[in-house]
């Protein structure tokens, strides 16, 4: 005969069960929002690189040619203070554009043309964030360890590296960190603290995402995406416009040099 055992549930255990549920919802939300933020950040970053490589470079070139034209004019009119001033300002602009372009370090890094994460990648990220997010733990050592892991996850996500993410997940599940065995009261306190931590992080995520959405680059990306829907490639149009302007300015510079040498 089987012996029936009466299970006595203490108030702590009851409270803990409730908090655990709440924590699970919060953790899921956190993973989701982290994923969204990371996706947003990576998309804008990838767009920025694309913009700089296609358009930024052309602005730099255009400014260079314009500075050269201003230089020619200034040389031809050494007593014209307006021409000298114009040359100074054109040169400053050219330097500024060039250093702005260089500051992105585009020439050194390859950068991806576009950031398009697959649904599987997103799912895996969400899974990982739920388990590993540093804000789900309150222990300092664990937090540090999970923080490092999270950075790794973000990097792998930015690189769309599915294999790396899977490895991290496997490693986590087989680690002793995943096993928690303590008394209920301690667990309850930890759950409450975790919830508080997560809600703070959620606010921070929202703030960061808002900052990205307010940036010029995001606005430009939105416009380009919107135009794409109506079949317009605004970046390509910009490229065409700038190419034509560069060509025109170069022709102008050439005829100027020709004119001056004929004049001599």
């Amino acid at each position, binding site marked *: 005969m089987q012996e029936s055992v009466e299970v006595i549930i203490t108030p702590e255990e009851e409270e803990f069960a409730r908090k655990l549920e709440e924590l699970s919802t919060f953790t899921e939300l956190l993973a989701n929002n982290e994923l969204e933020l990371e996706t947003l950040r990576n998309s804008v970053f990838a767009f920025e690189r694309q*913009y*700089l490589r296609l*358009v*930024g470079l052309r*602005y*730099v070139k255009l*400014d260079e040619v*314009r500075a050269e034209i201003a230089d020619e004019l200034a040389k031809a009119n050494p007593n014209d203070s307006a021409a000298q001033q114009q040359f100074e300002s*054109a040169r400053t*602009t050219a330097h*500024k*554009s060039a250093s*702005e*372009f260089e500051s992105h370090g585009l020439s050194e890094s390859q950068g991806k043309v576009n950031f398009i994460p697959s649904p599987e990648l997103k799912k895996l990220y969400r899974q990982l964030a739920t388990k590993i997010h540093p804000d789900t733990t309150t222990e300092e050592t664990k937090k540090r360890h999970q923080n490092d892991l999270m950075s790794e996850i973000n990097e792998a996500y930015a690189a769309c590296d599915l294999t790396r993410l899977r490895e991290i997940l496997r490693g986590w599940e087989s680690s002793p960190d995943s096993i928690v065995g303590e008394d209920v009261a301690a667990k309850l306190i930890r759950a409450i603290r975790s919830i508080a931590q997560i809600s703070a992080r959620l606010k921070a995520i929202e703030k960061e995402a808002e900052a990205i959405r307010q940036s*010029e*680059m995001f*606005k*430009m990306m939105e*416009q*380009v995406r919107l*135009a794409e829907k109506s079949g317009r490639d*605004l970046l390509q*149009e*910009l490229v*065409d*416009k*700038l190419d*034509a302007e560069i*060509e*025109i300015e170069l*022709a*102008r510079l050439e*005829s100027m040099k020709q004119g001056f040498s004929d004049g001599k």
Partner: protein
Amino acid sequence: MENERNEKELGKSVAVIKDISTSIVTRGLNDIAFLTNHKSAEYFLDAGQCLFYESENYHHANLYFSQAIRLDPHNWKAYQMRGESYYLMGEFDLSLSDYQHSLTLNSQDVESLLGCAQSHIKLNNYETAMAFCMNAIDISPTDMCAFKTLALACHMMGSYSREWQVCDKILQLRQLPMDFFGRGIACFSLGSYKEAISDFDESIRRGYNHFYAYHLRGSALRRLEQRDHGIEDLTTAILLNSNYSNSYAERGVAYTHFDQYSKALFDFSEAVRMSPDNPHYYRMRAMCLVRLNEYSLAIHDYKRAIDLNIQDAKIHEELKVAYSHLNRESVCSLNQIESEIIDKLKKLNEIEIQFRQFVSQSETPLGSEQQRDFLSKILQIGYDAFCLKNDAVLYFADHDTKILREYDTNLRPVMDKLKGNRKFGSISAYELLVKLLNVTEEGYGSVSSMESVCREMDKIRENLKKMAQYTY
């Protein structure tokens, strides 16, 4: 209203062109904003028009129009504007092609029709130009530019009565000073100088202060033999525009009628300087130079006129006359020089006799042996000078200038030595020697001029031979 809108848009384009914002991201955003509000072709068309009208940089504007056409090959305005820029750059074939293309996209565009007409005028297709003008007038019956272009086409074609009709029609529509001037030109071309003068009077009275109005009125007055008034008007024309050669030429002709050849010569020279390829100006100056007895220069100008392919048989006759004048003059001057030499030689002879007498009368006229040698040297040169007449004759015979050259090299150092040695013997001996040498030198000078005259004569003979070849 329309203008205001244009100006606003042009201003915007300028801002776009000059926009060099701080960051390349902000600039991208601004450019995208522009591109989403406009078609890209419009951007280049606007920017090109801004360069065209504001900076008058047609070459640069042309590049913008080309880009607008590349982006939107159906933009007739871009073709029309590029046509205009080509026209102003002097590329009339290209301007015509663009205007025609613009018309295939918008057949009612009067500006392109007139652009075609103007390009055809530049390409000497006057009848086609007139057809385009008529087409433009059909579309826009009061378009003054169309009438003006039509009048120009008629004028270029030499159809002056038609030109007059068009100009008269313009005057029926409006009476601007320049419209009277336009009809005046037609009258002038028809040879109706009185009517032309009355139209020019009216246009000048109404404030048309253009040099060409004065030029044509002056020219008309000259043709009506009111030359003093003509000169007055032509002078005003020159004051208003000193770079128009024809005003000088016209005034030059007026001066010749008053026998003021020096003034005429100045005017013709100015005309030649400004238009060195106009054969008529050379001929006019040559005629003037003949009157001033400058035959060599006149011949030079006649030849230049003939080289520039003047279509007139009479000019050869005129050249021949100039040659005969020059020939006669040369013979005269040759005879004159010859008699001068004979005079000089006579004088030399006299001095020589005096000198010999002086030497024989005086016991010790000269100091040292050296001085005596020196004297005999000079004496020898005196003898040589005496032989000059013979030398000159020899020169005529075989063109041998060697003797003359040798003589010169001998004479010079002795002369210099004598001039530097004033202690030579007695004063009277010195004076005699100086006299002797001066006369010798003069004699040599005469022979030299004789030589150049002879050379001139040779040239004339040669030219006459050439003349004979193509005149007969």
